[in-house]
């Protein structure tokens, strides 16, 4: 005796490959958004973004006629008014150095927050990327569909991109838009584009490195605990060892966090920006000039080629591990 099948039919052509890949990304992000931890991270990331937007907004309004700075010093006496006038004049005369430098500084600082929040979130995400799928034999489910290992991988990569966009790129771009929306001069737009571009370039480099390492680590083991230990070894432990002054540079370059810190210096070029500011701005106080030079020394970075080689080696190793593991078992 057979069962009676009360069932609707679906005989339409399947939706395209992008839809199927997006389904993986959307499901991963939906699962993540259900966790309280990720919602806290989002709150922090957008809080930092808001602070960035407020800083940018205050800076752009500082030179506006009748702006907040002018109003603030209106009753503070002639000396304060003179300082503000001088500052406004410097901004107007050296927009490239001051506006570019200020936004570079803001985005440079934000990159620390963005990277750290992304790394902390990835620590909880890494086991659910590939590890749990392997433990539950979910690869058989994915790959028995009209999907390949590459589609699966792109879907998982999309989840990491989504996390970084929500925690890092989103607040960055939103804060820039807010700053520019109320900027009194076109110079702010023109001279903030380069720092924004550098911030996005570092964001992209971080995305590639973090995505590859996270996916590689996640695919090594089928055990969640083992993956967490591996992530701890690849991130905080390796960074701790790399940060010792006595650690040889080649060994330090095997820490992706250390490499990203080095790359940050090279991309933002804070050393050059601070030195330019110290050299070109007519700063009356020698202390400020010396302070800028000291800061420039502090942010000096190491060998870029070694950093890039280290990152490339880590990315390549992660990809090799990843592709070897992406098969149904």
């Amino acid at each position, binding site marked *: *005796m*057979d*069962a*009676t*099948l*009360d*069932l*609707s*039919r*679906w*005989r*339409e*052509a*399947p*939706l*395209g*490959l992008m*839809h*199927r890949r997006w*389904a*993986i990304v959307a*499901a991963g992000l939906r*699962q993540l958004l259900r966790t309280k931890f990720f919602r806290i991270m989002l709150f922090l990331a957008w809080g930092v973004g808001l602070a960035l937007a407020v800083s940018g907004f205050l800076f752009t309004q500082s030179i506006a006629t009748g702006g907040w700075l002018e109003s603030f010093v209106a009753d503070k006496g002639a000396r304060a008014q003179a300082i503000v006038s001088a500052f406004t004049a410097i901004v107007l005369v050296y927009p490239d150095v001051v506006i570019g430098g200020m936004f570079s500084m803001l985005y440079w600082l934000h990159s620390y927050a963005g990277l750290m929040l992304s790394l902390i979130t990835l620590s909880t995400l890494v086991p*659910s990327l590939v590890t*749990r*799928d392997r*433990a*539950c*034999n*979910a690869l*058989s*489910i*994915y*790959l*028995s*569909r*009209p*999907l*390949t290992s*590459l*589609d699966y991988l792109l879907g998982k990569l999309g989840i990491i991109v989504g996390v970084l966009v929500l925690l890092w790129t989103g607040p960055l771009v939103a804060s820039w838009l807010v700053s520019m929306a109320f900027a009194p001069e076109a110079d702010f737009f023109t001279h903030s584009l380069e720092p924004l571009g550098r911030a996005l370039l570092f964001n992209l480099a971080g995305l590639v490195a973090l995505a590859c390492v996270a996916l590689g680590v996640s695919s090594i083991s089928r055990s969640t605990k083992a993956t967490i230990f591996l992530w701890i070894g690849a991130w905080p432990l390796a960074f701790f060892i790399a940060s010792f002054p006595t650690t040889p540079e080649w060994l330090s370059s095997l820490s992706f966090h250390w490499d990203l810190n080095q790359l940050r210096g090279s991309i933002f070029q804070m050393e050059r920006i601070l030195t330019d500011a110290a050299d070109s701005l007519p700063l009356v106080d020698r202390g400020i000039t010396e302070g800028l030079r000291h800061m420039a020394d502090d942010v000096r970075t190491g060998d870029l080629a070694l950093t890039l080689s280290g990152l490339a080696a880590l990315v390549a190793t992660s990809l090799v591990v990843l592709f070897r593991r992406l*098969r*149904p078992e």
Partner: protein
Amino acid sequence: MDRPIIEARGLTKCFGTQRALSEVTIDIPPGAIGLLGPNGAGKTTFIKCLLNFETPTAGTARVLGREIRPGERSSRERVGYSPEQDCHIPGMAGCEYVTYCGQLSGMPFRKARQRAHEILDLVGMGQERYRLVDTYSTGMKQRVKLAQALVHDPDLVFLDEPTNGLDPSGREHILRLIGSLRRELGISVIVSSHLLHEIERICERVVIIGAGRVLEHDSIAALKDRHRRVVEIAPSGEPERFVAALAGAGVPVERLSNGRLRLESRTESAEWILTLLRDHRLPPAEIVANPNALHELFLKAVAGANGTTPATPPPLPPTVPAGAGPTSSNDGRHA
């Protein structure tokens, strides 16, 4: 004749020095097909090659007319797969999981959700569908695994041991469902199972694989016809008189430990046995033709592939004088 759902030409898969599949050439027509074979025979490798999980070492294959090539997706658009081992996507409720599987097959979300609920009803999942799959019992996981294989309305479904872990009523329910898939929806089903009676019940054809080769491929009816015509009779009483009547007609009879009598029929039909028993006023309680035909064929095919003789059940003795008195044998039967 319908176009074959599976066409394999010299399909070979080697793992190092071991040949898991050896030049398999077969055309499987649409229908419900049982895939039989002992452990390590190559059944799973065959399915994996057809699903593109494994790249064949040599040979070609087509599924639903689409060639299997590395990176090829379209051959799996209308194919469903329920693997043997426990598998699910962690962190999802049952209905969410099945909907997601539909989306992965290219279904729009709304349609996938609608089909997911219909299929979950069909496989007998109630409110449990709103619980995380991770918390399901083995039986529930088995049902949800079948649901994900069917959600996108495939033309062909591979079911690897689909009744593992199910209780008797659940097993019955799923077997009825699988049987209906072909008859009502026209979905071809390839069932890999060790439970021969289940295969015999739901499948029209059988493919027996052993040592990486196809040993038998035919409809169950044709295979049974080729099999020697064994009949089992359950005497309603006085078994000695049954034995005597049959022996008197020159039919070798084997007495089984469960009280039944086993004999080889002279013709396709068992009608002459009924006539004989009626003449002797011996009404049988039950007559079963070819009771273990598939089982015996399976053992025979596998033994042939291994170059050995099948261990059980033993062949009928050429001539046994009925009523000669019980004689002990190793397997507990007596002639």
